[in-house]
Structure formats: C-alpha cells, structure tokens
C-alpha cells in the first residue's frame, strides 16, 4: 500500500509570536511538525507495518521545512517530497491544496492522510479539498482505520476501509470507504512514536525530492485573502492577582469566597 502523508511545519508551540502584516516574523522563532499531522504520520507508519508498501511524506514551504521532513523520515517514512515555496504562508486553503494535489497526482497513492488542521492558520480544509481536487472519496476526524481486503486474493481485488469517525458530543460513526481515498486523522487516534537513533541515521540516506509549484504547472487564483493579523481585544475585564504563590493563592480564595461567591 502506498501512503502519502501531508505534513506541515508550524511555529513551535511556545514560540513568541510577533506579527508583521498578515504573517509573523519568522527570523527568531523555532518551528516544529504540526502536532495533528504527527498523528497522521504515525497512523501511516502503523498501516505500513501491517500491510507493507511505502510511506511518502509530502511537505510544502521554505527550506526550513526540510528539518521536519527529516524528522518524519527518522520516524520511519521511506522517502519525501518537498514542494519548495518561500511564499507558502500567503496561500489560501484552495491554493495549498491545488499544489499538493498536483504532486500527489503523479504518485498514484492508495491512501492520502492529513492531520485535522494546522496549529498556525487552522483552516482545517486540506484533506477535504485534496479529495475534491483528486476526485477521491474522503472522510474526516478518523479515530480508527481497518483495511479490508477483497475476498479474492488477487492483487486487483477491490479493497475498502472500515473507519471510525468522531462526531460531536461524544458520538461516533462507522463508515465504509473504498480505496484510494483521502482521510483526515483526528488527533489522539494513536500514540505517536519518537525517532530512534537508528532511525535518525537511516534517514540520512533517504531520498528527498524537491519540486516547485512552477514545475508542477499549477497556477493559482486566490479565493480569499488575509488582510491583517492582530492580537484580539479583550471582551471581559480580567482582574489579575499578583504576588508570591502563597499571596496569590490567599487572594484568590478570598475573591472566590467573598466576591464571586462560588466556593
């Protein structure tokens, strides 16, 4: 089974964000693998351990993205495709998906996995858009994947998946989905592995193919534009309590007891 996992590199969770125009200053902050995507990668690696084949990592962005690609290769992905793009942060969801779809098209994968959403833009549309652009069935918020082989042992036997989807308010649903397909993985589906030293060494020999949107022949028509980014204005007046931990604790208990009257 050939699986492509789309992975985004995003600013590190504790990175101090300083806004410039409609993006952030990238110069002094660290970047990391988008956490929801790490669940998709893990799921791809587990499916590969069970069913064989190949796991290909696909990532778009400037040169720094290679560091995240290498992490994915160290965890066990077999090879990677890097769509080099310095203006990646300016793409709208459709533009990103069109570019990724063009790269995926050439690979003819059985399964394409994405995370739930990115921790930076948070559009949460990539997986569904890929399905639309590649004309494949899809499902989102996946909590379990079971590959069902056809009754015949022939290689061409129809294959499908039985999936567990998360709905709202504690509800779930099983669905059947044919292959090939695009799935957006819900965070928490599995326990993500760490890269081993052996994996890190092995990754050095793995292939990273670099391509560009131009080489893929994709031209974009933006459908939306981020005009500006800013820190939200407060809607509620917060009373900040200061002092030593002990002082703060005493003040807080006082407030909760006599002002808010909730304890």
């Amino acid at each position, binding site marked *: 089974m050939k699986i492509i996992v789309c992975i985004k590199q995003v600013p590190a969770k504790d990175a101090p*964000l300083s806004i410039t125009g*409609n993006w952030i200053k990238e110069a002094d902050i660290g970047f990391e693998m988008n956490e929801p995507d790490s669940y998709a990668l893990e799921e791809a690696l587990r499916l590969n351990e069970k069913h064989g084949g190949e796991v290909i990592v696909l990532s778009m962005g400037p040169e720094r993205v290679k560091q995240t690609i290498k992490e994915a290769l160290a965890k066990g992905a077999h090879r990677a495709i890097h769509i080099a793009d310095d203006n990646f942060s300016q793409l*709208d*969801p*459709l533009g990103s*998906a069109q570019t990724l779809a063009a790269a995926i098209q050439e690979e003819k994968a059985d399964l394409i996995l994405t995370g739930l959403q990115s*921790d*930076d833009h*948070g*559009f*949460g*549309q990539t997986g*569904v*858009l890929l*399905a*639309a652009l590649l004309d494949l*069935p*899809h*499902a989102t*918020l996946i909590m379990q994947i079971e590959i069902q082989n056809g009754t015949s042992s022939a290689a061409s036997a129809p294959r499908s998946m039985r999936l567990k989807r998360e*709905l*709202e*308010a*504690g*509800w779930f*649903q*099983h669905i059947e*989905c*044919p292959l090939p397909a695009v799935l957006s993985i819900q*965070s*928490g589906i599995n*326990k993500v592995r760490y890269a081993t030293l052996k994996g890190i060494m092995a990754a050095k020999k793995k292939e990273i193919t670099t391509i560009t949107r131009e080489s893929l022949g994709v031209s974009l*028509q*933006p*459908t*939306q534009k*981020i*005009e*500006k*980014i*800013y*820190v*939200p204005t*407060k*809607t*509620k007046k*917060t*009373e900040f*309590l200061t002092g030593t*931990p002990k002082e*703060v*604790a*005493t003040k*807080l*208990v006082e407030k*909760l*007891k006599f002002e*808010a009257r*909730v*304890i």
Partner: protein
Amino acid sequence: MKILVVTEQRQGKWNNTSFETLAAAQQIAADASSTVSALVIGKGVGHLAEELAARNVAEVLLVEHDLLEVYTPDGYCVALSQVINAAQPDMVLFPHTYQVRDFAPKLAAALAKGLIGDCIGYRNDGGKLVFVRQMFQGKTVSDVTFQGAAPWFASFQSGAFRADSLAAHPSGKAPVNKVAVELKTEQIRTKPLELFKEAKSSVDLTQAPLIVAIGRGIKAPENIQLAQTLAKALGGEIAASRPICDEGWLPMERQIGSSGQTVAPKLYLALGISGAIQHVVGMKGARTIVAINKDQNAPIFEIADYGVVGDIFEIMPALTEALEKAKFA
C-alpha cells in the same frame, strides 16, 4: 445580495448552531441590504422547514431525496451544488460543525470557490465584508476577505452569534419551496454505518458545579496528582483540554471542548490551558473563570474573571493549602 444559510439536522433533530448562523445571516443582511434564505437538507424533514419559515427569512428551500436521509459528503455536495447553481446566492453560510468541516470545503471547491471557515465574526468596512477568524490557536485573530466572484462560502464557529437574537418572520410565514435534486447511488462512494457512543461514562461533568481543568502546561502525567489534590481540596471534578486526553493522561470523558463536554459550572479553574477556541466553546458559559498560565498573552485570559500569570506548579500547592485553610476559617 442574496444569502443562503445551509442548516444542519441529524435524524430530524436540529444542530442548534444552525440558528446562530441564521442570526449571523440576519445581521449581515440588515447591514448589507440583503435577503436571507434558509435551506434544510435530508429526507422527511418538511417539519423542520416549516419551523424555519416562522423566522425572518425570505424563503426556505427544502431539499429532500432518499439518498440524503443519512449524511454523506458526496451526497450533500452533489445535491447542494445543484441547488446553489439554481438559486444563485451571493453568499452561502454554514454553522462550523464537524459535518460542515467534512463537506463544505469540497462543495466550494466543486464550484471553484473558497471557504472562509470557522469565523467568529464579521465587519462591514464601508461595503466590504470582512470575516474575522482566529489563527495560531487563538493567540491572534485575522481579517479575511473574499477574492474573486460570488458565491462566497463561510462558516461560523459555535457561540459566535446568539441564537436568541434570531428575528421572527414579520408577517407570519415565509414560503417553503421544494428544490428537486438529481442524485444516483453510484455518486455516493462512502457508506455510513451505525452511530454509537463509547462505553457509558462514570462522571457527568455537565453537572459538576466546580471544575479544575488542566492543559498542556501540566507537562507530564505524574504532575496531574497536584491538580487532583487541588480539585479534592476544592470539592470539584478534574477535567482537561483535548491534548491531555489525546495523550491518554486522563480519560476522554474528562475532556472539555467542541469534541468533548460543554460545561457551565459555577467555577472553572483553568490550569496551564492556553484557551484555543475548541476548548473555550466548551467552558465559556462558566459563571466564574479563573485562569493560571505562565504566558500572559494566552487567549484564556480574554475570558477569565481572575487571572494569575505564573507557574502552575508553584500555585497549585499554595492554592490547595489556602483552600484547606479556608475550610476551617
């Protein structure tokens, strides 16, 4: 301008975020001299269309088909693109539900359009509609505008508008117009099976008056003990944001947020929780919110009544002690 609101129902029951989106549409319409149409999709949902007709809408579109009885992204996209092509709205609005996440981007893409998803508000800047959405897990917000020709697609986050501000129809009832769609079995590639809930939970957080909730700031499972001791001193229940339950540090039934429980306790004590929108929608109804976080810019402080910028590992034991002391005071 013509606005179409795609409402959501499952098994003939409303997803109430639909009414918030309808309220959003009414506000945009009042602001931008537009009309609002509401759409109901499914099978045997005529009674829901009648219910919507009593609201202040120009018309209700009723889209019914045997193959729309149960939701599938393929079925909804095939049907709704036909309706949109026929009705020609300028703007199509959705409640930002899990279901909408699953099909709306595809529907927009099928018509070569984009979707501004998960909006928390909008502004009319001199005739230009600006949609506001969060980025960086709520640490920043962004103003987004549509590019290119209509129709434009947008979805509104739960809680962004108030359903009780929804206006009734001024003269009784809006017309309910049935829209026929063509749909074939082979166009629907996924097969939905049964809906189910996991094993019954042992705790009902929705009934807990006092909640101590932990987030990523707790760092390691062995540190949860500190929060549990604090919860015990307070006489409250322990809860968590999604990442903690994803890690398996606390059971899923203790998760607060859009994919977990929605609670409205007397007191919500948020420890090391940054306040991403997915968490906030599950707890912003709390009467008193206390946030303790080392990052003074954490979005959780925007909704907190009391805030402490500091190290939860220092404050948790101090607070436990102060609470124990207060019991005997």
